[in-house]
């Protein structure tokens, strides 16, 4: 059994799959976490920055950053789903096929 597992883990398709996933998942997770906590730190330590007007109107930098963060969430999930469909899914299928051949 463990012999078979070793063989699976050494499949080039499996290695490519885990690599591809790591390459996208952690950077995007860090971007999401960092963006949110940076905004919280600005609120805590430099709230005045957020009160400044964005382009001379009433809209403040704070409101723009807040709405921007919501949009960032859309972008992050969009990028990941697109990448997963294009790159990760074919690798999952290829790995599964190879695992089937191992039997």
């Amino acid at each position, binding site marked *: 059994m*463990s012999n078979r*597992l*070793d063989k*699976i*883990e050494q499949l080039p398709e*499996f290695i490519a*799959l*885990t690599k591809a*996933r790591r390459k996208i*998942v952690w950077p*995007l*997770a860090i971007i*999401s*976490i960092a963006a*949110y*906590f940076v*905004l*919280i*730190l600005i*609120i*805590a*330590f*430099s*709230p*005045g920055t*957020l*009160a400044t007007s964005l382009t001379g*109107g*009433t*809209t*403040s930098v*704070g*409101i723009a950053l*807040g*709405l921007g*963060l*919501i*949009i960032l*969430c*859309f972008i*992050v*999930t*969009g990028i*990941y*789903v697109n990448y*997963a469909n294009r790159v990760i*899914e074919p690798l*999952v299928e290829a*790995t*599964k096929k190879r*695992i089937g051949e191992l039997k």
Partner: protein
Amino acid sequence: MKKLLAFLLLNIGLIAPAWAQTAAAPAQNHRIAMVLFILFVLVTLGITYWAARRTKTTKDFYAAGGGITGFQNGLAISGDYMSAASFLGIAGLVYTSGFDGLIYAIGFLVGWPIVLLLIAEPLRNLGKYTFADVASFRLQQKPIRILAASGSLVTVIFYLIAQLVGAGKIIEFLFGYSYQTAVIGVGILMTLYVTFGGMLATTWVQVIKAVLLLSGASLMALLVLIQFGFSFDNMFAAAVGVHSKGAAIMAPLTQKPDVISAISAISLGMALMFGTAGLPHILMRFFTVRNAVQARRSVFYATGFIGYFYILTFIIGFGAIVLLANNPNYIADGKLIGGTNMVAIHLSNALGGDLLLGFISAVAFATILAVVAGLTLAGSSAISHDLYGTLVLKGDKSPEAQKKEMRASRISTVILGIIAVLLGIVFEKQNVAFMVGLAFCVAASANFPILLLSMFWRKLTTRGAVIGGSLGLLSALFLVVIGPTVWVDAFHNETALIPFKNPALFSMSIAFIGIWLFSILDNSANAQKERAAYDAQYVRSETGVGAEEAADH
């Protein structure tokens, strides 16, 4: 099922006279709201009747047979997550403090990319019905399931009390029922949906609610934006012009940097962001789809719907500032009639008269029901699948054992429903606002660390998970109790023992450090076996090979 129909008729019989009695009372009672409200109850009970005939096995009960599509599940997840508290509460918060309300709303969204990136796919590949399945995949069943079920139940009960108390007050105000009648009515409906219709009925109640809530909120935001020529800047300018705090609402209201409030803000942020990824009723939804691809699609749609919804509530809050703040129809003694939770309700009347008011009131009611049904289902699964299935049935998978587990799940739903209603009535006069925060804090400090590390950290052992996870759970509870929300607001002490309202920063750290420390110190034979089993789990987590195939519809 005859009983169900009998109840249904009885329910209408009870509703009609109650409406007649209160028709002369507050102006909030309208025929349109009543008709829509009864229609919603009838449709959802009809769905429950339909779902009950399709709910035969535990798989049907916990996971709707496993054949929900990603899009449907995305809608259902948003229906599970967007509570009446966020709709009415955040609109109210934007109305009173502008920017600060937006930041609060964002906290409830930022957890979703994390759920998508780190949780959804491996969770679906490894688990069957609850997140305890995943946490106990290569660890010892008994201790891990007891811990995971405790974390789930604590989260579910606090969340449920907060929702029921809020529901009682909203329904009391909107429809004129007494608080008790409202809580009992909601309790009966949610218990019926879950007991008879299981996950299938719960899913469709959530889908319908999500569609209703998103359409209602979209219409309101549209009607607001029309008034300002679709210019946010015009809307903000008008709001700043009439708001008592003026331009201050465009930025944080506290303009003085201070360390305590910075730590509090970071701590709340952690609870919201990582707590989302540890909510049992949300995690459970990922087992209703066929595979990891559909799980991924679910979160993609859910994030879109939830983010869009928070943008709408933000627009609604600002629209309310302009349209309600100086309108004598909605203001008495300088305050909004019914409190700031009624901002969205009053605004619907200001924008679309009785028709829109009736619609939005019915939507608020549907919103409450969908959320409490999802919570009840998650709580009853923790009892029947994790506790009863492991401790009493000892993991027996025979058809007889399945039948017993099925019966246990229905009984635990009814018991949970009764407990929730009783607690809802007990806590009527209490300030329960801290309970949602506490639920998120426990989810972030117990459920999330155990789940995350069991999936991604080879060296995790049962001992580490149990000690660290328990420390996280207990420290979260303890620190909330000695903090301002319970020690001062509920127990009426002079000052709190710690100044932080949400202690997730500390309890999460305690959990992660505890799990790490007691895992690496664990060199028992068991620990070696558990680490060796990581490879098999890793392959399945990445590929789904070995995962149970979901049923075709």
